[in-house]
């Protein structure tokens, strides 16, 4: 084995992949949430639709989005490999376990949380991303030209209370996933220091509450506005 | 047989240096042709196994624990002495030598002790190089403290876990040699017998504690690094598994057992809380630097304390007897271990003991806390206080600790010459398993020093002198001597399993312990010792007719393991008592009530007893034969110890 394959077949090498892909996805979330804030703009969706076109056509963004796909898939595959190794490491479980006294629930259930978040991502991509790429989306014309009216697709989708609920619940679970994952990624990278770790933990907690909350506010806002 | 200690000629300071030159060497290319067996992986065993493997010998290392790192050396708290004189306070090799000889009450060999003091400085260098994290000063250099009443600061330490750090250092060196393929490790394997061929030790027979398999291992030399036998008292600060079996089986194969009666009783242990007690926990001696030892002045007050009608803090200063300060104004609470222990026994015998069993005295930090503040005391002793609270449920910041002496270390052991060789050629004993360096009493922080000195710096030289004269050929384990030994062990196991009596092994062990503690403990009398011999013989008979050992021989079987060990303790116990009985004097850890000064101090008889008493096994249930190795003092003048 070369040193590269050896590294990435070691537990720590794989943990490194988890941390790096995780952190990249955190960065992605920042971009995603900031762009989507345009949904709140009271302009009938023009800014949002222009933004959507930009995101699907700009070559630099394309590269970033490919990196995002790779990160998601990588994060999932590596986590499956690690989980199966972890499972094998304890073939017999304890009859009595008080794990709650030594660790948080979400830290112990990152796999479960991640799986649900992944299912959500698939649903989410199907709802909008696939529509944007291949769906029959109505067109809308502004001064700057003709655009796919993704805004209308979003509005239509979130008039469905069930879908809104699914999104909100998923965002809560994503929050739990991030609540552990954010600081954990830094720990895995070896970035644990008396001076900085408290700040990392604080930012991680704030991030994992604020960002999912912002995401969740979108379907709620749209749903409420469709009621009017 | 005349015991030849093989002490080299020449002046004391030059003996070891010259002797190192005079000993034969084994050519580097030939070292790999020799096999050495090391039994026990504590400080002495691990350091010896690692050092010999580094030299090129093939080593097999055995321990009964699941890993070499568990050996009981790990529990040593205080520190390790070395004559580095880093503190510029007047220490020197000679002073460490002198203190050790004097502390041992002039019952050890000058040449051995001087060598120990000489190599002590190398031990510290070696351990630091291995990455042992000793305590340091802010300038980055090593810190020292004064320990056990020494007047210089020569003790190196790693918080209260010096033994752990030193053992892990030796264990790491051992592990490196395992990785190099020079040491083969046999954990969970107990030595059952030494095999001698043509009078020389040529191997051992072991029992695999998991499978029960009886196996033979052949070698050119065998090193016993198997620790002390304090567990003969059942209750001691030794680990539960510590035993005399390896040393005792060697004794039965011809190795003389020296000074078995020298037992060190440590004054600061947590008292026994009831019949369920399985072992005793030591509290570091350093506590006596700040704690004051006392009991109530009157029996009546003590009685009230025992009934919990009053609390310690209710007793006024004028009703307290700070007996060590009163009797020993200059040393006070810092008198040597044996003196502190004996005095605790006296005040308890007077009915002034302070716990329910009447066997405890107070160690009080009230005044130290008032003087230095709780923070300072906590910084110094926090972990010990926590441990005390964990075990007793009492908070020593608020109420005085209760302490009582407990068996801690055995100075006696297999007789060895200057080369650490027993009376069986090719069979060596290192560390606490031998008798050599501490005389009748060991100083604090000297056990770690001796274990590592033997393993790192003595045996690598002396074993070559023996092996250089040995043929390379190995004896096959199909040799008749091995087969014979295997058969005897299997028979013994069968015997133990077939008795199927009514009493458990622990029951016998506890009863033996009580006899030993009562008659051969802190204070001994001829009358009591006589009585004890009969009692032990009776108990031994009863053991072999009424013990109940469950299970089979071919599985992990704790009760069988214990049965072997207790059977050996039952024989050793009698020898200890006989040794104590014959030694008509008091010295160090051996105190005969008939021999004391008017002030109640140990009274030595240098004229008649300045010798090592080495016992030869003459057969089962036959009285052992005493051999004497006279102790010659050319450099120190024998004086009466005084701590007034």
């Amino acid at each position, binding site marked *: 084995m070369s040193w590269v394959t050896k590294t990435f077949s070691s*537990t720590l090498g794989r943990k490194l992949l988890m941390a790096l892909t995780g952190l990249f996805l955190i960065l992605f979330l920042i971009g995603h949430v900031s762009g989507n804030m345009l949904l709140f703009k009271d302009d009938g969706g023009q800014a949002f639709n222009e933004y959507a076109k930009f995101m699907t056509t700009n070559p630099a963004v394309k590269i970033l989005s490919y990196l995002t796909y790779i990160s998601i898939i990588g994060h999932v595959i590596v986590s499956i490999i690690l989980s199966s190794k972890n499972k094998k490491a304890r073939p017999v479980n304890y009859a009595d376990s008080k794990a709650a006294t030594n660790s948080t629930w979400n830290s112990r259930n990152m796999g479960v949380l991640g799986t649900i978040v992944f299912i959500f991502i698939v649903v989410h991509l199907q709802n909008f991303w696939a529509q944007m790429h291949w769906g029959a989306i109505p067109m809308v014309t502004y001064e700057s030209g003709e655009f796919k009216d993704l805004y209308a697709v979003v509005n239509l989708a979130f008039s469905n209370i069930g879908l809104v609920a699914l999104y909100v619940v998923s965002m809560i679970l994503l929050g739990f996933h991030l609540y552990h994952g954010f600081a954990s990624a830094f720990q895995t990278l070896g970035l644990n220091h008396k001076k900085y770790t408290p700040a990392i933990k604080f930012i991680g907690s704030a991030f994992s509450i604020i960002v999912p909350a912002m995401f969740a506010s979108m379907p709620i806002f749209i749903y409420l506005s469709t009621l009017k | 047989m005349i015991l030849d200690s093989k002490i080299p000629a020449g002046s004391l300071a030059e003996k070891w240096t010259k002797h190192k030159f005079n000993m034969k060497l084994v050519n580097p290319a030939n070292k790999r042709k020799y096999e050495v067996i090391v039994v026990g992986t504590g400080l002495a065993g691990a350091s010896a196994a690692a050092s010999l493997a580094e030299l090129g010998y093939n080593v097999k290392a055995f321990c009964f624990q699941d890993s070499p790192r568990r050996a009981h050396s790990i529990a040593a708290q205080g520190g390790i002495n070395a004559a580095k004189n880093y503190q510029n306070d007047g220490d020197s090799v000679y002073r460490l030598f002198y203190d050790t000889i004097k502390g041992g009450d002039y019952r050890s060999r000058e040449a051995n002790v001087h060598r120990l003091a000489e190599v002590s400085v190398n031990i510290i260098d070696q351990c630091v190089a291995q990455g042992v994290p000793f305590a340091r000063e802010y300038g980055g250099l090593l810190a020292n403290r004064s320990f056990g009443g020494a007047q210089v600061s020569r003790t190196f330490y790693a918080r209260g876990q010096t033994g752990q750090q030193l053992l892990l250092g030796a264990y790491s*060196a051992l592990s490196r040699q395992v990785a190099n393929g020079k040491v083969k490790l046999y954990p969970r394997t107990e030595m059952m017998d030494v095999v001698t061929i043509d009078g020389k030790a040529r191997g051992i027979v072991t029992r695999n504690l998991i499978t029960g398999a009886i196996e033979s291992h052949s070698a050119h030399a065998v090193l016993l690094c198997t620790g002390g036998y304090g567990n003969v008292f059942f209750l001691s600060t030794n680990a539960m598994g510590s035993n005399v079996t390896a040393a005792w089986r060697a004794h039965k194969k011809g190795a003389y057992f020296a000074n078995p009666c020298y037992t060190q009783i440590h004054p600061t242990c947590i008292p026994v809380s009831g019949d369920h007690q*399985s072992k005793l926990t030591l509290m570091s001696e350093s506590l006596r630097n700040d704690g004051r030892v006392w009991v109530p002045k009157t029996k009546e007050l003590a009685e009230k304390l025992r009934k919990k009608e009053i609390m310690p803090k209710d007793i006024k200063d004028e009703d307290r007897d700070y007996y060590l300060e009163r009797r020993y104004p200059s040393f006070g609470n810092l008198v040597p271990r044996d003196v502190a222990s004996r005095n605790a026994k006296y005040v308890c015998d007077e009915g002034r003991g302070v716990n329910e069993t009447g066997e405890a005295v107070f160690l009080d930090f009230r005044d130290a806390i008032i003087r230095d503040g709780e923070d300072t005391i906590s910084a110094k002793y926090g972990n010990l206080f926590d441990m005390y609270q964990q075990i007793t449920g009492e908070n020593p910041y608020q109420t005085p600790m209760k302490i009582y002496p407990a068996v801690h270390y055995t100075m006696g052991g297999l007789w060895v010459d200057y080369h650490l060789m027993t009376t069986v050629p090719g069979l060596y004993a290192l560390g606490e398993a031998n008798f050599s360096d501490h005389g009748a009493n060991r100083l604090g922080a000297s056990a770690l020093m001796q274990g590592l000195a033997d393993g790192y710096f003595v045996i690598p030289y002396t074993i070559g002198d023996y092996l250089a004269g040995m043929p390379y050929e190995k004896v096959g384990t199909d040799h008749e001597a091995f087969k014979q030994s295997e058969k005897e062990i299997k028979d013994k196991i069968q015997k133990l399993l077939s008795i199927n009596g009514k009493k458990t092994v622990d029951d016998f062990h506890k009863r033996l312990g009580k006899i030993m503690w009562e008659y051969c403990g802190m204070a001994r009398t001829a009358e009591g010792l006589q009585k004890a011999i009969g009692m032990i013989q009776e108990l031994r008979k009863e053991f072999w007719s009424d013990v109940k050992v469950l299970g089979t021989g071919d599985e992990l079987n704790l009760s069988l393991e214990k049965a072997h060990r207790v059977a050996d303790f039952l024989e050793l116990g009698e020898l200890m008592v006989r040794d104590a009985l014959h030694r008509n004097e008091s010295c160090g850890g051996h105190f005969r009530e008939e021999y004391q000064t008017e002030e109640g101090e140990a009274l030595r008889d240098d004229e008649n007893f300045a010798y090592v008493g080495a016992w030869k096994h003459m057969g089962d249930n036959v009285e052992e034969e005493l051999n004497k190795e006279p102790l010659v003092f050319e450099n120190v003048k024998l004086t009466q110890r005084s701590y007034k």
Partner: protein
Amino acid sequence: MNLTLKVWRQKNSSDKGGFVNYSIADISEDMSFLEMLDVLNEELSEKGEDPVHFDHDCREGICGMCSLHINGKPHGPQQTTTCQLHMRSFKDGDTITIEPWRAAAFPVVKDLVVDRGSFDRIIQAGGYVSVNTGGVPDANEIPIPKKIADEAFDAATCIGCGACVAACKNASAMLFTSAKISQLAMLPQGKVERKERAEKMIAQMDEEGFGACTNTGACSIECPKGISLTNIARMNREYFSAIVSSENV
């Protein structure tokens, strides 16, 4: 007090094993947990039943041999070793569940006894400074800042009991391995071999079949010596810097 013990009994490594309930009476709160088991074993022996096998030796909290999973936690409810746990932590009428450490790398030998040889092999892979006896410099030749020495000491206090593995949901040995890597990486004596050491010890850890680290922190909380998670971070740094810069291709 009177207690019910639910104890894992397993004849040997190939036996399937199962729980057996025992009632035990008149237990004093001053007893240590292991002394309570001693009492049980004396009773069993008197009845002619095989005593419960468990590992223990020093009973002072330092040798690391005792290893019981008590009421859902390694070493029981207190942050200490099993041998230092006392019965005053329990109440009359309690049912106490006692299990062996559970990990593929710690196979059960009998009852509550497990084989922790994997820890020894991790140390053998590189948990040492390669110096031979003799010929080393004077101990005071290399000054080490007190803070560094103290931090190295904190890592070095690991007793190798395996509670970290027992506590970890993945049965990971990261805390154990990192404590040794950390100790030696911090000290100048250990720096020479730090890259080699990190690579080899981690490879061995993987080979033994321990799980990965999810940074739940359970190991450190349950560690009787309070070994810190910073050691795992340091080990990761050591490893990552080793793989990119070591000479091993």
